[in-house]
């Protein structure tokens, strides 16, 4: 592991909303005319757009009143870097690892020489600006989600520095996952994680993003991810979010699938006070296949706002979405999903399922499953259910002598298992079970 010891430019305690802060940030970025222009444009977009209102269709039912970007700052590298590095150990087997904290690169595990010889690139965003600017110009910031977070996405782009860039050439198959950690640590920190995965023809790769907090301090995260799955490529991206309970986060993910590509996206949401997650899949290639999974455990006053879009623009493709939410206390979740099938996308199979498990009478689950279909030879459906633990299942367990709290817990974990079982990496799956159990364990005291 190589620790990055270069001193980052000083941006101590500067308000992210001030033009001076942005100027300083730009001056500290690697000199790349394209990136400078992109970030300046993003800054202007951010400044010109108003904060969203819940009367906007894409923010329907959202709690927009308390949303504020005031009081967040760009931070120096945190003092507890060693502790953070030690905690960045959810997976032991990985092809490459990047660890960022408060927007600074703390450490990088480079790829093996074998992978490097095959042409795989595993770079931090800053490295890529030096060594592969043409790759970034083609793919970075190339798509927006169209789901409403334009302002936050623009802010994330304007301040983008911490990010992982993964390029896998034609026919290369990488078995072990790539891992990126984005930590928020100091009081009022703002972080802007970027992920870019380019998988060329018939390549295979997976990446796990961890979004975590090293303290209970308030923080802001505006992140984006873009996956480009080339013809026949197979990409699995997982993101595990466990921010502090005072964090506000806006994550915008986009995906493009070319002909016969297979895309898997799995997102786990545990932390944050307010977390919005936008997931947009653009199916541009015939015969491609996209699966989107999400698991959310919401408690206390947490608010999770999830919006998804499955855009079918090519024929014979399939997409399948499964979002499961478990709600405790006075938590609130929103699922707003849309399947859009264009005129040319005949023989599409598209599905969308939202399941909400209400574990407390005061929790609120909102479901907005939508379809817009313009092709006639398609199979599309969506299903949404909201309810409690099945009484008959509970009765069955009680009848067999299992105490009620245990039975409830088992049934709740059973509800999560459907999504966790989709994780192809047993170590990561176990880690997820542990994280979910931990969240429940802290509730019991």
């Amino acid at each position, binding site marked *: 592991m190589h620790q990055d010891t270069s001193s980052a430019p000083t941006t101590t305690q500067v308000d992210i909303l001030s033009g001076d802060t942005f100027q300083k940030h730009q001056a500290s970025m690697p000199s790349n005319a394209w990136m400078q222009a992109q970030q300046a444009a993003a800054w202007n977009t951010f400044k010109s757009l108003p904060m969203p209102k819940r009367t906007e269709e894409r923010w329907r*039912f959202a709690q927009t009143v308390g949303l504020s970007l005031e009081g967040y700052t760009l931070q120096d590298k945190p003092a507890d870097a060693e502790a953070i590095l030690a905690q960045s150990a959810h997976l032991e087997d990985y092809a490459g690892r990047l660890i960022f904290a408060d927007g600074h690169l703390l450490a990088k595990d480079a790829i093996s020489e074998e992978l490097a010889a095959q042409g795989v690139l595993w770079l931090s965003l800053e490295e890529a600006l030096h060594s592969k600017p043409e790759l970034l110009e083609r793919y970075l910031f190339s798509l927006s989600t169209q789901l409403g977070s334009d302002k936050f996405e623009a802010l994330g782009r304007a301040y983008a520095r911490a990010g992982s860039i993964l390029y896998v050439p034609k026919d290369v198959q990488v078995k072990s996952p790539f891992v990126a950690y984005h930590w928020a640590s100091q009081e009022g920190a703002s972080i802007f994680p970027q992920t870019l995965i380019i998988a060329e023809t018939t390549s295979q790769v997976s990446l796990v993003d961890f979004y975590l907090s090293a303290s209970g301090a308030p923080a802001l995260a505006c992140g984006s991810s873009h996956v480009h799955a080339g013809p026949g490529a197979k990409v699995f991206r997982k993101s595990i979010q466990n921010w502090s309970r005072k964090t506000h986060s806006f994550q915008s993910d986009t995906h493009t699938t070319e002909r016969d590509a297979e895309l898997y996206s799995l997102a786990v949401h545990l932390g944050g006070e307010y977390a919005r997650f936008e997931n947009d899949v653009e199916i541009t290639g015939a015969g491609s296949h996209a699966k989107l999974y999400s698991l959310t455990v919401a408690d206390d006053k947490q608010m999770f706002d999830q919006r998804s879009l499955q855009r079918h623009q090519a024929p014979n493709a399939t997409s399948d979405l499964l979002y499961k939410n478990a709600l405790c206390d006075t938590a609130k979740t929103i699922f707003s999903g849309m399947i859009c099938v264009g005129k040319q996308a005949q023989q599409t199979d598209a599905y969308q399922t939202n399941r909400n498990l209400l574990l407390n009478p005061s929790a609120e*689950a909102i479901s907005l499953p*939508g*379809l*817009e*279909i313009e092709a006639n030879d*398609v199979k599309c459906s969506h299903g949404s259910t909201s309810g409690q633990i099945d009484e008959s299942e509970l009765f069955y367990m009680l009848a067999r002598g299992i105490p009620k709290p245990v039975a409830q817990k088992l049934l709740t974990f059973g509800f999560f298992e459907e999504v966790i079982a989709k994780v192809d990496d047993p170590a990561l799956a176990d880690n997820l079970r542990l994280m979910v159990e931990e969240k429940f364990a802290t509730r019991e005291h």
Partner: protein
Amino acid sequence: MQEKPSIDIDRSKGDFHYETDYAYDAGLGLSEKTVNYIADVKEEDDWIRDFRLKALRIFQEKPLPTHWASEDLLSINFDKIRYYLSKGQQPSRTWEEVPDDIKKTFERLGIPEQERKFLAGVEAQFDSEAAYSRMKDNLAKDGVIFVGSTEGLMKHPEIFRKFFGKVIPTGDNKFSALNSAVFSGGSFIYIPPGVKVKQPLQAYFRINAENFGQFERTLIIADEGAEVTYMEGCTAPKFETTTLHSAVVELVALKGAKIQYITVQNWSNNVFNLVTKRGLAEEEAEIRWIDCNIGSRLTMKYPGVILKGRKARGEVLSIALAGDGQHQDTGAKMIHAADETSSNIIAKSISLGTGRSSYRGLVHIPKHLKNCKNNTECDALLINSNSRTDTYPAIDVRGERNSVQHEASVSKVSAEQIFYMQQRGLSEAEAMSLSVNGFINDLVREFPMEYSVELKRLIELEMEGSVG
């Protein structure tokens, strides 16, 4: 593939009109003057006039809901519409009294025969006012009231004023405000406690004048344990310019009452049909909306039930057929407001040619409620490659032991089914028609016999030539 289905065959039934001299005409455009004119002509009490003027202000302040609804709403020119037209007569109680030209219209549409056959009462509205209104004598003896909107408010304020504008407040949406400002005609019905009206009551709405807007107002109150079925049908001739129909329908089912409201909407396809319909169900009451939309250019209609009393039940059964150039934007709203309430929504739509059908729904269960249930099923069938369908449900659930399920599917007529039927000697068009009728068959059965036969025939006709 033949792109243009021959969808106009059946509409010819309503596609005729007569030159009519109107005694009262509020002229083009909408202002306080128009509203005062209507109130003057109808000799209304001051509170009704004030209600209208307040509604007008709300209408003018509210923007068109184009942030979620069709942009086509922008093509309505509110200044080119006539808001009140009538011949000034009181509704006739016998068929002979109806003026000849109006009689001709309704005779062509078959109103008197229908009445003789199976209706307990009928009201026929011609432009702004009811031209004919009659109810069987025994119902009047039981205390049933079946009158027009102004008559209801003026003669029976003790019954109707309490609920008028309460289920659908004036400010509910832009078009409910518009209706509240310029309403005329419609049916105000009161069924006394325990009275079960066996035969359906019917209203027939007819737009006869060009550039005319029809704004009928209906309020049905079923007192404790009462039961009633109400049916409405609507037609208009095909004019060159667009016409607006914007009704408000309020239903109140008191404890244990049952109301069934059936609509077969077959406006010509240049009518904007923007209707607000909502029912209030008290304890153990039941409200069913059975809604079939075949005509109009753009329909926006989301019948709803507020389930206010324990064990109240709400249901919406909806069929929409969107042909070339039509947009059927329909759906349902279920607002649960008491324990153990249940609601059911079944919506089926068929899009044909360039037609577009949308389902928009709302299911709301707030946090203090227990044991509520909702079931929603929406199925869409797409016939041609340029047809379109959308589904936009919103489901908001809290509380204890509530369960909500929503399912939607989109499909086309299965090629295997068509092949199978062709094997047995049916033509492709016949097979298609049979298949489509099968798709909506279980809903069509819910309509009264006369309507379901008519509906099936209508769909057969609409489907003719849609495959090729």
